[in-house]
């Protein structure tokens, strides 16, 4: 039986505008850093897993596993916890310094959130949440037919997959919790919005950077033309966020870990904006097909002299300087281009546009890019 240890801890997250913000998060080990979001859990349909929660915080912590049933805590069915008749936790918790051991058997595949079930109005906005992916029972990444989100024959094959978890930060709340001061949740006013625990432009950086020890997950979506890129959205904040990828529509194949299908009727749909509600998950396939322009089949417009155009007004650009995939053009002198191989970048962001700022400054917040490379290693876009 797979065993996963999660340690509830505190730490400091960093924002691109130089802020350092106290938070609570889950860690993989006793000595590891608190993580935002918590470590990804990858489980398998029908296979029982055991999750041990160790609590190093000063108040009880529990975990809610959305979409799962028959959860046991220390061998007994999970139950809400009360002290003196007052609700304390939605589920069995670990006392400060204590632990609780959960076991359950995911009965269907999909994307799920796990999050604190104790003082959740505080603990989830403080960072105690993470993403869980349940593989279908017949999952086999080495056989195309069986590398699916929902099982062979469900039309959910994919080439690469990415998790994108939305969340918001009100620094006043984090400061109040750090200082042990009261905080009125009704005054919640976010100044930062995150994807996978980072604000743009940090969202576009790699996983596992030394200088972001508490925020290990990047949000850059990478693939090739025509590939099926599975994007798993999770709404871990307390607000809804309309996520809009440029480049093309996504096909929504599942909501809340449930395949959009009734018997033989396929209920999946294409969208250019998906409103990710608090606590919801959306599984979608993004498939970008090239319009077919190459240096041999040129675009029907004339590319102007780039020195007369706005390129990299921010001092940097993701552009190659060329209209063509895999071709690098002449970026004006003085502009830093992060483009490597002539890949195409398409922004993916919240369309509540104030959320793509860091405390009001664009660019920032809930924004990342989809990068389409002329060719890309199959080792990119694997969730473990």
């Amino acid at each position, binding site marked *: 039986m797979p065993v996963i240890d999660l340690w509830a801890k505190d730490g400091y997250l960093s924002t691109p505008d130089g802020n350092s913000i106290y938070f609570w998060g889950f860690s993989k080990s006793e000595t590891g850093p608190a993580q935002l979001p918590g470590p990804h859990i990858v489980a398998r349909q029908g296979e029982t897993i055991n999750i041990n929660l160790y609590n190093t915080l000063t108040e009880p912590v529990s975990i809610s596993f959305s979409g799962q049933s028959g959860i046991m805590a220390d061998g007994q069915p999970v139950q809400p916890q009360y002290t003196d008749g007052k609700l304390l936790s939605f589920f069995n918790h670990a006392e400060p310094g204590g632990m609780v051991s959960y076991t359950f058997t995911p009965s269907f595949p999909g994307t799920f959130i796990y999050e604190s079930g104790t003082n959740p109005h505080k603990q989830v906005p403080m960072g105690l949440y993470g993403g869980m992916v349940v593989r279908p029972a017949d999952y086999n990444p080495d056989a195309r037919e069986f590398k699916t989100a929902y099982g062979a024959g469900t039309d959910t094959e994919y080439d690469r997959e990415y998790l994108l978890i939305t969340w918001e930060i009100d620094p006043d709340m984090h400061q109040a919790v750090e200082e042990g001061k009261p905080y009125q949740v009704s005054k919640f006013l976010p100044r930062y919005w995150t994807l996978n625990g980072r604000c743009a432009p940090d969202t576009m950086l790699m996983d596992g950077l030394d200088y972001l020890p508490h925020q290990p997950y990047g949000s850059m979506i990478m693939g090739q033309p025509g590939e099926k890129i599975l994007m798993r959205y999770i709404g871990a904040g307390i607000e809804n966020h309309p996520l809009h990828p440029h480049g093309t529509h996504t096909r929504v194949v599942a909501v809340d870990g449930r395949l959009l299908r009734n018997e033989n009727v396929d209920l999946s749909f294409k969208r*250019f904006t998906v409103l990710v509600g608090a606590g919801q998950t959306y599984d979608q396939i993004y498939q970008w097909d090239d319009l077919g322009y190459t240096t041999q089949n040129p675009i029907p417009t004339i590319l102007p002299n*780039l020195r007369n155009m706005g390129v990299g007004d921010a001092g940097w650009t993701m552009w190659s300087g060329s209209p063509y995939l895999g071709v690098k053009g002449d970026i004006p002198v003085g502009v830093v281009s992060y483009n490597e191989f002539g890949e195409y970048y398409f922004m993916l962001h919240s369309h509540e546009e104030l959320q793509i700022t860091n405390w009001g400054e664009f660019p920032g917040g809930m924004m990342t890019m989809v990068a389409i490379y002329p060719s890309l290693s199959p080792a990119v876009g694997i969730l473990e």
Partner: protein
Amino acid sequence: MATVIKRFGATDGWVSMPDGTDHYIFGFVDISVVPENQIFQYRGKATLLAPLLDVYEGDEVYLTLTNLGFPNRPDLDDTHTIHWHGFPNQIPLWDGVPEASISVPVGRDFTYYYQPLDPGTYIHHCHFEPVEHIQMGMVGPVTVRPKLEKELGLKFAYNDENTAYDREGLIFLTELDPRPHHLVANVQEFDWTEYSPEYWLINGRSYPDTVKPANDQSMPQQPFSALVEAYQGEKVLLRFVNIGFQQHCLQIPGVPLKVVGLDAQQLRGYNGEDISYWRDVIYIAAGQTMDVIFTAPRAGIYPLYNRNLNKNTIAGTEFGGMVTEIRVSPKP
């Protein structure tokens, strides 16, 4: 298939609200047929909404953006772009994201090319510092008409006879927070996390202005009417667009609404199943579009308004805001 050649100028201007207040905007103005030596007469004449881009499936569209500058803020040399929101399989060159390709400096032109293959309702907007340039007003509608219309000589939302209609209306939703408009006009910064709109607009106007005719002389920079008129029994297509920063919910009591399209996709399943549905209230998130058909009921006036009732106001006090009317006349 036709070749469509259009030219939009990016500039600034002013809009007015029913309470007599004026608000500084950024926006676009249609200069497609203006001779080159006269385009500068259009500086300061941005419209809210930006011009409609109305094309057919398969058309080849050449849309030139000319940055005319801001005569009210000559110090501000912002570049601009046009982003066709929802265009499938776009390439970055024509996607209008400054961080991923080109933006257009003052005095320069750039031509975007599109060959839309999927009918439906889309949005165009500037993507330079989008929180500011969208709120300031650089937003407009895009409709792509299906080729079935040309084949049958009738009107359809999509390539499906079940989406036939007689008349269409645009319900294009935005909000206006007067503080950033005022601050931008006065060369000051706004903290966007404090965004809190006070005016609620359909087609760039607040009720009762929404029901005034198109191109009303009292609002030269707000040319779009939101009044919908039909004869009893006619099918009416409403194209809902939300390019505000909040979710909205619209209703027309007494008029059941059939949602036939979302985000420029007909509500058909993967294998053609009919997954359209009925609603009394249209919930629409920021950045979404919806195509809705209703049959005009008995003659009368049917108000369309926001069920977030706080948004049916002007500056938080008077009745107005995100309200318009469907006026149904008896069959001729």
